[in-house]
């Protein structure tokens, strides 16, 4: 036992590689939140009146809400008046800009992060929306996508260019009053991504958003809305990083997905926000509401997430399965190290007949970290013939980490079926000894064992990112064996 623990402790010591700061002039609001701040924000973005009204209504509602305390995470109270709610790189002209006009310093930042924005250098077949602090700085491959009828732009642009779609769907899945952080987001969201896939269209490339927090003392409140019309298909991936800072920073995002008849949305996340240092100082508070509605019959929403960053993660990508035969899936790898805390899982709300859902959750805890799976499977009265399969596996590395599983089940329908499996295991001394006896480095051995543990989830990621996710685990674990 002691041997593996010692090795693990050494492997855990590891530098965060995206921790640099971009020196760029920014327009940043003074810290603080009130109706004037929201009016200023809306005005800066040139929003139509309906959007401002929506924000103010959300804000007034939020003032009456209380911060939730039920999650298995501990942190000092966030002072919402000490955060700046808007920070954007200074720009000469108003949006939208073409790539040639984007500040070269920003392009260099994304290049350094491995996300070249110039289309000639970009990953083949992947369109990117780059969000830097509070604004979207560039969106690639807009033209080929437009040819297919796909709208892929920042949500700020969508509010102005496609107000009818925004009015119809914004808040339709996650209402402003849904929960405390969703309320805060509705009032203050500054940018994010908008995707609209028209009827019968299979989106010709992977879409992705790369979120970067740069400025200090700001919160990032982005909002993503994806609408897949009948018979359409889209695969979307988001990635996130932030500089290393001693202060905690808040990230409170909302993601809404809408799938109509026979439509499919595949949503993948590789979350690597700065997790704080090895003593638990700094890091991002990642308080996120993600929910998809399978409105149409035979529709499908699939969430895949690889969560390795953030000081605290509070996140439950969920599916409302309203349409008959609709399908919800949740594949998750959550890795916590040092003093990170994660409370993550999903909700599968079965409302329609013959709806089915699958939950595969893999939690890995190393160091002093704590990792909780929290899931709800609910069968409504109309969910005749509905089925769920849940599998929650936890892997402990070392003897100071913790894993918790909180599965909730509510059934109002006797004709629904549910299977649940849960395991907890440890990277054992025997496994390590076997690998090392064959000549394999201890670090490589741990990463191989952990990757094996996550295999079922990794195979759900778009191919371009599956390799990256494997590497990310290696990086996050480096130092946990010596």
């Amino acid at each position, binding site marked *: 036992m002691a041997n593996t623990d010692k090795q693990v402790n050494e492997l855990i010591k590891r530098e965060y590689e995206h921790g640099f700061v971009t020196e760029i002039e920014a327009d940043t609001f003074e810290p603080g939140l009130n109706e004037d701040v929201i009016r200023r924000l809306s005005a800066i973005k040139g929003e139509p009146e309906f959007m401002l009204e929506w924000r103010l209504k959300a804000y007034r509602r939020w003032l009456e809400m209380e911060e939730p305390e039920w999650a298995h995470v501990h942190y000092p109270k966030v002072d919402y008046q000490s955060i700046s709610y808007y920070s954007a790189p200074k720009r000469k002209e108003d949006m939208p800009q073409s790539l040639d006009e984007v500040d070269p310093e920003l392009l260099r930042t994304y290049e350094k992060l491995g996300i070249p924005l110039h289309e000639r250098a970009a990953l083949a077949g992947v369109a990117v929306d780059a969000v830097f602090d509070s604004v979207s700085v560039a969106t690639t491959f807009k033209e080929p996508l437009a040819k297919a009828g796909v709208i892929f732009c920042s949500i700020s642009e969508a509010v102005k260019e496609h107000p009818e779609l925004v009015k119809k769907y914004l808040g339709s899945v996650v209402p402003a009053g849904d929960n405390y952080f969703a309320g805060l987001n509705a009032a203050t969201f500054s940018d994010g991504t908008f995707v609209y896939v028209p009827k019968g269209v299979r989106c010709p490339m992977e879409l992705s958003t790369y979120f970067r927090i740069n400025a200090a003392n700001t919160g990032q409140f982005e909002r993503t809305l994806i609408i897949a019309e009948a018979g359409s298909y889209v695969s979307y991936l988001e990635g996130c990083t932030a500089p290393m800072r001693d202060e905690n920073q808040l990230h409170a995002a909302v993601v809404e997905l809408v799938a109509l008849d026979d439509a499919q949305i595949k949503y993948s996340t590789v979350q690597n926000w700065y997790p704080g240092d090895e003593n638990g100082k700094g890091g991002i508070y990642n308080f996120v509401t993600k929910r998809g509605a399978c409105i149409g019959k035979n529709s499908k929403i699939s969430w895949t997430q690889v969560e390795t960053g953030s000081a605290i993660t509070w996140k439950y990508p969920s599916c409302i399965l309203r349409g008959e035969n609709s399908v919800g899936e949740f594949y998750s790898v959550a890795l916590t190290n040092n003093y990170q805390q994660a409370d993550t899982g999903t909700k599968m709300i079965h409302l329609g007949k013959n709806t089915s859902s699958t939950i595969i959750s893999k939690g890995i805890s190393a160091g002093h970290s704590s990792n909780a799976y929290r899931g709800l499977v609910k069968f409504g009265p109309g969910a005749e013939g509905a089925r769920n399969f849940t599998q929650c596996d936890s892997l402990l590395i070392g003897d100071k980490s913790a894993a918790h599983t909180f599965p909730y089940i509510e059934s109002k329908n006797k004709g629904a079926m549910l299977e649940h499996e849960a395991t907890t295991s440890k990277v054992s001394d025997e496994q390590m000894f*076997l*690998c090392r*006896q*064959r*000549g394999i480095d201890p670090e490589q051995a741990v990463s*191989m*064992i952990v990757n094996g543990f996550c*295999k079922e989830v990794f195979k759900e990621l778009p191919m371009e990112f599956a390799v990256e996710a494997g590497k990310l685990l290696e990086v996050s674990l480096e130092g946990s064996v010596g």
Partner: protein
Amino acid sequence: MLSIKNLHATVEGEEILKGINLEIKAGEVHAIMGPNGSGKSTLSQVLAGNETFTVTEGEVLLDGENLLDLATEERAREGIFLAFQYPVEIPGVSNMQFLRTAVNAQRHHRGEPEMNAAEFMKLARETSKQVDLDPSFLKRGVNEGFSGGEKKRNEILQALLLQPRLAILDETDSGLDIDALKVVADGVNALKSKDRAILMVTHYQRLLNHIVPDFVHVLAGGQIVKSGGRELALELEDRGYSWLGVNEETTAS
């Protein structure tokens, strides 16, 4: 090749090995026999570098180099191979990936180029047939859901791929039926070469009908109490251990 001098080792404060002396030369096959709890498995684990055990005295030289100074993985790269008595499972890590990682770690150590996936797959498929394992086992998780016999054959497969200088077989015959024993023995015999030594740890003499040893040693109470040739094993089968003054029910494990 391997020279063990006055080797003492403890686990959780209890002394299991109490002064082992053994010389193994390239090309030789040695068998270590003895009752349960005599320290046979401990000896193989200590040689391979299992850190659960603490060496308190003595030395082990591999071609004159102090083996005990090397970490487990370094010993493996120097050619020490242990076929485990109870091979552990690594779920989700394919046998193929595991084996290629191991082979390449050792090639890297010797300054040889890594084998690419295609080259390695061809080699692994051929070798798996040699131990009567269907190549489909290469795609499965390491030992995941393998039967006892399949696990043992997988160990021999690894030895054949890694081509060690000293192969230590820890009770490789235990739990095998006679057909499986034959397959495993054929695999081990295929390993024999003038550059390689084999150290077999076994409780029963039946393995030695298939793999003929040059030397047989009796381990009891943490020491080698008698050494001889092939005939010693047969004598042990006839007469048990008591004529050597050894209590068959020695306790330590």
